[in-house]
C-alpha cells in the first residue's frame, strides 16, 4: 500500500513536469503616458504564453525614483519611460541589466545613447513650440525662425513656457536654449522675460489654459509643447477637421529631441520573457502602434508612420540635443540659473 502511494506520488510529480504550464507573469513598469493597443498586447500574450501586468508610476522622474529605490528588490521586470534627460542618472544607479536585442540591428545609431545596451531606445519625440495658425494668419505675423527671433518685439507676450523645475517639456525647452546658446542662456532668458514671456507650472496649464488654439482658448498663440501635438489636435478634434489648427516651429535649435528608453531591470526573475518583451517593443508592430497611442515617433525605420502623423507633425531637421552625462551633471545648476533670472 505504502509503495503504491509513493509510486503514484512520483508518477504525478513526473507528469506535472510534462503538463502544459500556465501563463508566465511579466510586470512592466511605465510612466503615466504609456499606451498601447489592446489587441497587440493580447497577441503578444497568446504568442508567448505570458500574462503582462502594467504598472504606472507617475512621470519619468517619479518612475525612475521608484526604480532606483527598489533596485535590490525590483518592482517589475521591464522598465519603460526613462528619457535622455534622466538616462545618465538611471545608468549610474545600475538599475538595468544589459541585453543586446537582435532588433537593435534595425535601429539607427543616433538613438543608441547607451553603448552597453542597458537602456534600449524605443521612441523619440521633439519638444517644440506650437503656434496657432489662425492667429498668425489673421495678424499677418511672420513665424519665428530661430530662438533669438522670440525676443523680437512683435512677439511680445505671445509665448507661454513651463517652469523647468516642475515640468518635463519646460526642462526640455530650457535644455534647447542651453544647447543653442550655451553660456549665454541666462541673457537669453532675461530678454525673453523683458519680452513678457508667460511662465506656468505644467504642460496641462500652458496648453489648456494659456494656448489660444486649444479648447482652453487662452491668450497666448505660442506654447512649448510636443512636435506631435498638432497631430493630436486632428486625431482628437471635435468636430473633425481636415488640417491641424496648430503647427510646430522647427527652426534650427528650436526643438529639443527626447528619446525614451526601455530596459530589463536587474534582478528580474523572468529574464527570458523580459527579453521577448523588449524585442516586441523594438519590433515593427509595436513601433507602428506607438504614434497614434502615445504620439511619439518610432526609432525603427521599418515602421510605417500613419498618414495623419506625416501630414500634421513637422520633424525638425536640426533639433537641439545634449549629452545625457552633461545633462545629469548640470541640470540643477541650469534650473537654478533659470530661476535666478526669472524669479529673482
Amino acid at each position, binding site marked *: 500500500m505504502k509503495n503504491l502511494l509513493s509510486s503514484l506520488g512520483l508518477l504525478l510529480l513526473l507528469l506535472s513536469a510534462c503538463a502544459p504550464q500556465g501563463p508566465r507573469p511579466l510586470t512592466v513598469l511605465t510612466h*503615466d*503616458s*504609456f*499606451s*498601447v*493597443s*489592446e*489587441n497587440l*498586447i493580447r497577441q503578444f500574450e497568446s504568442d508567448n504564453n505570458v500574462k503582462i*501586468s*502594467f*504598472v*504606472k*508610476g*507617475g512621470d519619468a*522622474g517619479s518612475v525612475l*525614483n521608484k526604480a*532606483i*529605490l*527598489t533596485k535590490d*528588490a525590483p*518592482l517589475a521586470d521591464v522598465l519603460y519611460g526613462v528619457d535622455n534627460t534622466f538616462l545618465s*542618472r538611471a545608468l549610474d544607479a545600475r538599475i538595468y541589466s544589459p541585453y543586446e536585442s537582435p532588433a537593435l540591428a534595425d535601429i539607427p545609431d543616433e538613438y543608441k545613447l547607451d553603448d552597453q545596451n542597458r537602456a534600449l531606445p524605443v521612441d523619440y519625440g521633439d519638444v517644440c513650440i506650437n503656434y496657432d495658425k*489662425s492667429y498668425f494668419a489673421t495678424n499677418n505675423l511672420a513665424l519665428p525662425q530661430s530662438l533669438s527671433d522670440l525676443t523680437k518685439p512683435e512677439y511680445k507676450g505671445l509665448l507661454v513656457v513651463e*517652469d523647468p*523645475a*516642475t515640468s518635463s517639456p519646460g*526642462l526640455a525647452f530650457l535644455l534647447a536654449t542651453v544647447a543653442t546658446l550655451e553660456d549665454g542662456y541666462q541673457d537669453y532668458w532675461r530678454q525673453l522675460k523683458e519680452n513678457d514671456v508667460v*511662465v*506656468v*507650472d*505644467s*504642460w*496641462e*496649464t500652458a496648453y*489648456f*489654459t*494659456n494656448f489660444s488654439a*486649444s*479648447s*482652453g*482658448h*487662452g491668450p497666448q498663440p505660442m506654447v512649448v*509643447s510636443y512636435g506631435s*501635438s498638432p497631430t*493630436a489636435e486632428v*486625431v*482628437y*478634434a*471635435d*468636430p473633425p477637421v*481636415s488640417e491641424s*489648427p496648430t503647427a510646430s516651429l522647427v527652426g534650427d535649435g528650436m526643438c529639443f529631441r527626447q528619446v525614451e528608453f526601455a530596459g530589463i531591470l536587474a534582478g528580474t526573475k523572468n529574464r527570458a520573457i523580459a527579453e521577448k518583451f523588449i524585442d516586441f517593443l523594438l519590433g515593427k508592430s509595436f513601433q507602428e502602434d506607438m504614434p*497614434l*497611442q502615445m504620439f511619439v515617433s518610432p526609432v525603427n525605420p521599418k515602421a510605417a508612420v500613419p498618414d495623419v502623423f506625416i501630414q500634421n507633425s513637422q520633424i525638425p531637421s536640426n533639433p537641439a540635443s545634449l549629452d545625457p552625462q552633461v545633462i545629469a551633471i548640470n541640470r*540643477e545648476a541650469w*534650473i*537654478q540659473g533659470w530661476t535666478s533670472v*526669472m*524669479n529673482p
Partner: protein
Amino acid sequence: MTRRFLYWFAPSLFLLLFFFYPLIRVLLLSFGSDDATLSALTSLPQFINLLIFTFYQAGLSTLLTLLVGIPIAYLFSHYAFRGKPLLRALTAVPFMLPTVVVAAGFTALLGPRGWVNLALMGAFDLTTPPITFVGTLTAILIAHVFYNSTIVIRLVGNSWSQLDPRLGHAARVLGAGSTTVLREISLPLLRPSLMAATLLVFLFDFTSFGVVLLLGGAQFRTLEVEIFIQAVRFLNLPAAALLSMIQLLFTLFFSIIYSRVVTKSIVPLNPRAASLNLRPAKTLREKIFVISATTFILILFALPMAALPARSVVRLEPDRGERGEFQPTLTLNNYRELAVNRRGSLFYVPPLEAVRNSLIYATLTVALALLLGFPAASALTRPTRLENIIDPFLMLPLGASAVTLGLGYVLAFNRWLYSPLLVPLAHTTLALPFVIRSLQPALASIPNRLREAAAVLGATPQQVWRSVDLPIIARALTAAGVFAFTVSLGEFGATAMLVRPEYPTMTTAIARFMSQPGGLNYGQAMAMATILLVVTTTAILVIERIRLPGAGEF
C-alpha cells in the same frame, strides 16, 4: 487599563504599519545614503524665504477660511430654509475635486478668457483682460478657501447647532448685545471645534501642493513644492527627506499646541437636539442675512464648479471650414465619447468602472476610518499620560509630504503595492486623523451626568451608549464619514504611488484626458469631472440622510 489599551490597539497598529513604518524607511534611506547632495540644497536665505512664504500663505488662507466658514456655519446651524441639504452638500464637494479640475473651473470663470473677463471686456470695450487671476497669491488664497471651508462649516456648524442657547439668553436678559453674546459666550464655547477646524485647515494649507503649483504659477514655492522638485525632478532624496522632516516637525509642533489648548477648553455642556435650534428666518435682518449668505455660497462654491458641466456640453469650436469664430453649440458628444475606446487602447477607462472603483475605495475608507477612529477619539476624551503623548502624533499623516510618503510605501511594501487593497488603506491613513479630530470635540461634549443618570435608571453600558452617546454624536459621525469619503475620492497623495490600470478611478481618468492635446480629450475630462461632481454630491446627500438605528434626533 486594558480598556484603554484596547481602544488604542487597532488605530495605533494601523498607523504604525501604514504610516510610520514607510515614513521611517524612506527617511532612513535618504539620510543613510552617500550622496553629499545636502549641500546642493538651496541656500539658507532662500530656504528661510521658502518657509516664511509657506507659513504666510497658510496662515492667511486659514484666517480667510475661518472668516468665510464661521458665518456659513452659523447659517446652517440656526436657520432652516429651502434647498439647505443641497447647499450643504455643495460646500463639501470642492474638498475632493482634483486640483486640475478646480484650476480648470476657476480658469473658465476668472482666467484670461473666462466668463468674467469676457463680460467685462465686452461691457467696457477693453482689449486685454482686466482681471488677472491665475499666477497671483489671491488665486491661491481663494482656492484654499474654496477647498477647505467645508471643514470649518461642518465642524463648527455641528457644535453650534447643539449648543444650549440658554446661556446666551441669560446674557441677553442681563443686557448684553448680540455681538457680545457671540464674543463672550458662543465662540468660547465653540473653541474645541474651532481649534480642531483651524488646525486641520492650517495643516492642509501648509502642505498644499496642487493649488500652489497650478494656480500660483511658477513664482510661488512652498515647502511641499520644493520637496516635490527635489525628489522627483532632481532625484535628490536626501534633500527631500530633510525638508520632509522639517515639515513633520512643524506639524508636530502645531499639534502639540492644539492639544494643550483644547484640553483646557473642553466644557461638557447640555447638548441640545440640533433641530431645536433651527428655525426659519423671521425678522428682516435675519432674512437679509440668509439671502446674502446663500448667494455668497452659490457664488463661491457653485459658480466655479458650474464651469465644468458647462464646458462638457458646450462645443465652442466652429464647424468644419470656418476658422476663428466662436459658435457655441450644445452637444452630448463628450459623454458619448467616454463610452468609446476609439484607439483600442489597453488603458481605456470605462466610465462606469471608474465610478464604481472610486465608490468602492471610498466606502472601504469610510468604514475603516470610522472603525479605527472612533475608539481613538473616545480614548482622547479622557486623556491620561498615554493620550497626551500619542495625541500630537496622530496628526502627522496630514502633515507628511505625499511625495515622501509615496516613496516610503514603495520601499516598505514593494510588490504588495500592486494589490488594490492598499489603495483604501493608504486613503485611510489620511482620513484617520481627520475622523479622530472631528469626533473628539463631539465625544467630549457628552456630559457624564447623562450617562450616570441612565445607568442609575438601569441601562446597561451598551444601552447607555446607544441612547445617550450615539444620538449626541450622530452628526459628528456623519461629518467624519463625509470627510473620510471625500478624502478618498480626492485621492490625496495616492498619485505618488503606483497605479494598477485594472482599477482606474475617476480621478485617474481625468488626469489621463488632461495629459493629451485635442478637443475631445479636454471635453472628456470635463465630462468625467462633471460625473465626479454629481456622484460626490449625491453620495454626500445620501450619507447625510442615513439615520443610525435609534439615533434619531433626541
